[in-house]
């Protein structure tokens, strides 16, 4: 299995390398580190842009050299330059060509944003400034849970069991206070929210129960709820430590097996203090079925 790593030709984005090393070490996959540069254009034998093109290729090679220096030596990795009309399109092409099971990319921006909307494989996103020791592994997988995504939790559990990590179900209660002018008081919604939290906690317990009966069970199981007035606060409300990875499901229920990130999921990804992996529904269902089947 392969992780395809998008590495910007400008050589920034160390976080991506740290994250891909951590993931590869945990899963035993190899890496394909890829710098995407513009495809030749316009389609004509006249190459008035030869010098510029050469410079861009040179920059990409330099960036890959730097990536080679920074990645721990014991992780098998290939390095390549790919020509494409856009970075997201290029990464998807490489992912398809190498049958990648995860695409690793940098913090939310135009490239990551577009990948999340078009990638048929899970996308791992390094938070801004992400660093980890060279021998870091994934020790805990947190599945973002809103009450109805059992497949995602089971899929996350299967991966957690495989890499020897524990599983945590994380739900996030974001309570935006009603404005003063609404006249119902600043705490009017609190009762509603409390109800929601109770429901989610019981749903999480029953899902954990399902996970407990899988053929392969993660090291440990727990469920938490984070509270806050914003997604950022709610995410900060639960404790995180090194080796944590947050798994978020896509919100698409349609037949198209692509990541389509709902507004909630994209907010979670944006504010996640730990690396997030966005899993398309189709992939989650597949992984969950595999996990449930007796080996």
């Amino acid at each position, binding site marked *: 299995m392969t992780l395809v790593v998008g590495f910007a030709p400008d050589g920034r984005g160390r976080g991506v390398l740290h994250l891909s090393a951590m993931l590869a070490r945990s899963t035993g996959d190899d890496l394909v580190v890829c710098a995407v540069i513009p495809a030749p254009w316009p*389609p004509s*034998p006249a190459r008035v842009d*030869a*010098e510029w093109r050469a410079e861009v290729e040179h920059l990409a090679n330099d960036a890959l050299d730097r990536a080679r220096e920074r990645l721990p030596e014991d992780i098998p990795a290939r390095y390549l330059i790919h020509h494409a009309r856009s970075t997201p399109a290029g990464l998807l092409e490489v992912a398809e060509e190498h049958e990648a099971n995860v695409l690793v990319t940098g913090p939310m921006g135009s490239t990551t944003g577009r990948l999340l909307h078009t990638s048929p494989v899970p996308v791992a996103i390094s938070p801004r400034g992400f660093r980890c020791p060279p021998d870091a592994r994934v020790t805990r997988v947190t599945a973002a849970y809103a009450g109805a995504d059992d497949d995602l939790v089971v899929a996350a559990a299967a991966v957690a069991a495989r890499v020897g990590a524990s599983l945590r179900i994380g739900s996030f209660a974001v309570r935006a206070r009603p404005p003063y002018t609404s006249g119902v008081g600043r705490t009017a919604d609190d009762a509603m929210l409390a109800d929601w939290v109770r429901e989610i906690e019981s749903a999480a317990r029953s899902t954990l129960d399902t996970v407990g009966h899988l053929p392969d069970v993660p090291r440990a199981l727990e469920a938490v709820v984070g509270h806050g007035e914003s997604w950022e606060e709610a995410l900060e409300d639960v404790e995180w430590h090194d080796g944590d990875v947050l798994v978020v499901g896509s919100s698409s229920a349609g037949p198209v097996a692509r990541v389509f990130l709902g507004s909630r999921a994209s907010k979670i990804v944006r504010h996640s203090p730990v690396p997030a992996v966005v899993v398309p529904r189709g992939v989650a269902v597949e992984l969950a079925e595999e996990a449930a089947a007796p080996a």
Partner: protein
Amino acid sequence: MASLGEQFLRRKPVGVMAEETGADTEGGELKRTITLFQLSLFGIGATIGTGIFIVLTEAVPIAGPAVVFSFVFAGAVAGLTAICYAELASAVPVSGSSYSYAYATMGEGIAMIVAACLLLEYGVSAAAVAVGWSQYLNELLDNLFGFTIPESISNAPEADGVINLPAIVLIVLCATLLMRGASESAKVNAVMVLIKIGVLVLFIAVGLTGWSSDNLSDFTPFGVNGITSAAGIIFFSYIGLDAVSTAGEEVHNPRRNLPLAIITALVVVTSIYLLVALVAVAAQPLADFEGQEAGLSAILESVTGSSWPASVLAAGAVISIFSVTLVVIYGQTRILFAMARDGMIPPFFHRLNPRTLTPVPATIVVAILISLLAGLLPINFLAEMTSIGTLVAFLIVSIGVMVLRRTAPDLPRGFRVPLYPIVPLASIAGCIWIIQDLRAVTIYVFFGWSAVALVWYFFYGRHHSLLGRSSS
């Protein structure tokens, strides 16, 4: 310290170029993957279009119906120059623009002059094309919504306006896309070519219904002089043919296929142009051409009395000219990049945005300059400046081919001009003939511009040249 003469003539070693462009000179050759058919299509696609949408309005009043001969003449010269350029390009085993080829074969000073010509061939032509675009846009808006952008903000001062705002908007739009790293896929490019050919065929078919032999009764009202004068502006519509010339390394049997592809492309393009021109001059009296905006659309409208064929043509022009503008501005910024890398212009021009990898500062400067040209100058002047720039660049190339045969007879050439020395001599004569018939103002401005380039070279280029600094 090298003397001025030595500086002017110092050539960039091919090895250095190969290193810079990453070309593999050890293996010797690129894969020869392009067939004659493909190369001819490339040539047709690169050449056809834009110019023909604009030039008739300017050329017919100069030549009358005999403008068809101007097309043949301009096409023949374009073909000869393209064949000469092919020999020069084949002598340098790496790819680049004619600036790069000139630098490797004829020396730094000549390369600077060629670069000055390329600024006209790209920068000024982008302005000309943008002005043409604004005319077709106005035509389209008028037909579809009965609304036109006021004269004062859609025309240059000389054409009774203040500034051509739509043209500026187009340039800013293209530059913005380019800075973000946008490009066109091969598929979109092919569609653009088909749109251009499609609307020209539409023009021929519909315009034919308005054929009136009366309009052709006085076929050559301005004699031979009119024909060659008009050829100067018309040459504009053959720019792009030289794209074929640089494919010597990649085409099977270049000796046979390169000239054949150039001739095939030329025959196809010229035939379409001739039909368009003939239909146009037969459709309306000579006097109607002068000052006609969005010429082809206007003719269709008066021929059919209905607006839809004109609207289709205008829409096709608006879409395809947009794509051409994008390509031309792209080319300009990349040529400046190469020059800046050589130290001929300030390093500012080869600064890349680390995220998009595009030369953002250069693109901004280019967009501002082209916007000023497009906003303030009339289209006939811009078209003529483009023509003269391209013609002089090819004139230098043709002379260069002959000089190099004498001074560097052993230079390995992948392609040699057939019928030497007739072809380069004819090419030189053709270029000079067309140039001397251009309007005096065009020629003076061109000399002025060349002088600026030489002064720039004298005070900046020769001191900052990377080649000079590395050898001393």
